[in-house]
C-alpha cells in the first residue's frame, strides 16, 4: 500500500522491477483507455490493485456481478497497466500524478508511459494517424522515439494528468513519457488506439495483433459513448484545447 495526500494505491504486485507502467486514463478520443484495455485483455494481465481517494466520486463499477474499483492496476510479465473507468477528477490530478510516480519508484518500475490521443481537427481525412512521443527528459524522449519509430513532439502543449505526470517525472529525474496518436477530440477513436499499439512492441516486449481491435471498432465506439461524453465534459476543466495551440516563440 502506498499513500500520498488523499490518494491511496493498494496493490498486490508480484514484482515490478524493470517493467513498464502503461497508463491509459480517459482523455482525447479515449485512445489510452481503448489501447490499455485492449492490451489488458489480449496479454491476459492479472488485476493486482486499485487506487482509492476521497476525491473520487462514490461510485463502483459492477462487472459480471463483481464490484470493481474505478481505477485498477494490472500486471503481466513485462508490463503493469493502470486503467480508469472515469475521467480523473480535476482535484485528483496532482496528488494522483505524484503518487503514481512515487509508487512506480517504490516498485522499481523503471518507466512510466502514458498512452493518449492528440486532437486532430482533420482526423476525418487521415487514414493512418501519426504517432508522437515526448518524455520528462531528453534521454527518455530519444529512447521512446527510437523504440517506437514515432516522431518527437517538438512544440506544443500537453494538458491534464499526462502533463502533470511529465512534470513530476521531470522534477524527480524519473522516466515518464507520453505516446500520442492523432485522433478525434471527442469521439472514441479505436483506429488511433490501434495505430498507437502498432508502435509499442519494443516498449512492451511483444507484438500484439490489432486486427480484433479494428474488427470491433464500431462496437467499441458505441460502448464507450457515455465515457467519451463524460470525458469531453471534464476536458474543459484542464484546458485541453490548449493542446491545439502552439507555444509563443523566443521563450
Amino acid at each position, binding site marked *: 500500500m502506498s499513500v500520498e495526500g488523499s490518494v491511496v494505491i493498494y496493490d498486490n504486485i508480484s514484482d515490478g522491477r524493470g517493467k513498464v507502467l502503461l497508463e491509459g486514463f480517459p482523455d482525447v478520443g479515449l485512445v489510452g483507455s481503448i489501447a490499455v484495455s485492449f492490451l489488458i485483455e489480449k496479454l491476459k494481465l492479472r488485476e493486482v490493485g486499485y487506487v482509492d481517494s476521497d476525491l473520487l466520486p462514490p461510485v463502483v463499477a459492477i462487472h459480471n456481478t463483481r464490484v470493481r474499483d474505478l481505477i485498477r492496476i494490472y500486471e503481466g510479465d513485462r508490463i503493469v497497466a493502470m486503467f480508469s473507468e472515469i475521467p480523473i477528477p480535476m482535484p485528483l490530478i496532482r496528488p494522483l500524478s505524484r503518487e503514481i510516480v512515487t509508487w512506480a519508484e517504490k516498485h522499481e518500475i523503471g518507466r512510466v508511459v502514458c498512452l493518449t490521443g492528440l486532437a486532430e481537427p482533420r482526423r476525418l481525412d487521415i487514414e493512418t494517424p501519426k504517432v508522437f512521443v515526448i518524455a520528462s527528459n531528453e534521454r527518455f524522449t530519444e529512447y521512446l522515439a527510437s523504440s517506437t519509430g514515432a516522431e518527437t513532439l517538438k512544440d506544443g502543449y500537453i494538458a491534464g494528468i499526462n502533463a502533470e505526470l511529465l512534470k513530476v517525472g521531470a522534477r524527480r529525474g524519473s522516466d515518464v513519457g507520453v505516446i500520442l496518436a492523432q485522433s478525434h477530440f471527442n469521439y472514441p477513436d479505436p*483506429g488511433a488506439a490501434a495505430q498507437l499499439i502498432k508502435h509499442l512492441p519494443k516498449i512492451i516486449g511483444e507484438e500484439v495483433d490489432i486486427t480484433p481491435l479494428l474488427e470491433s471498432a464500431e462496437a467499441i465506439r458505441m*460502448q464507450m459513448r457515455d465515457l467519451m461524453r463524460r470525458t469531453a465534459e471534464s476536458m474543459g476543466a484542464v484546458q485541453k484545447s490548449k493542446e491545439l495551440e502552439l507555444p509563443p516563440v523566443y521563450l
Partner: protein
Amino acid sequence: MMARRRSPWDWLREIEREIEEEAERLIRQVKEIEVKTGCITPLYDVVETDGEFIVSVDLPGSDKSEINLEVKEDRIILEAPCKRPSPTSRHGNRYLLQLKLPEEIEPEETKARYQNGVLEIKLTKKSARRGVRINIQ
C-alpha cells in the same frame, strides 16, 4: 460568532463544483432523452466559422443510405438506424439527434459527407450571403 472569510481556494472549489454539477446535469439530460425516446443520442460537435456551422456526428454502425437528415432554417433533425445493437441494450438501436442552431442557415446549400462512421454537415449561415462588391475609389 464571526463569519469565516472565504479564501480564493473556496471560490475555486465552488466554481469546480458548479462545473461538475452542470456537466452532470447535461449528461443526465442526455440519458433521460435516450430513455424517453428509446433512441441513442449520438456524440456530436459543432464548429462555427464566419460563414458556416460544421456539425459532425459520430454514427458508428450506421449505413450512409439509411441516414435521414432533415435540415430546416434553424435546426437539423437526424435519424439513423444503427446496425449493431447497443452493447448495453438499455436503449434502442436507432440514433436520433435534434439540434437547434444558434443562427439561421440556408437549408438548400447544406453539404454532407459520411466517412468512417462520422457524418460531417456543412451548413451555410444566412448572414454569410455574399454582398455586392464595391470598387474602392
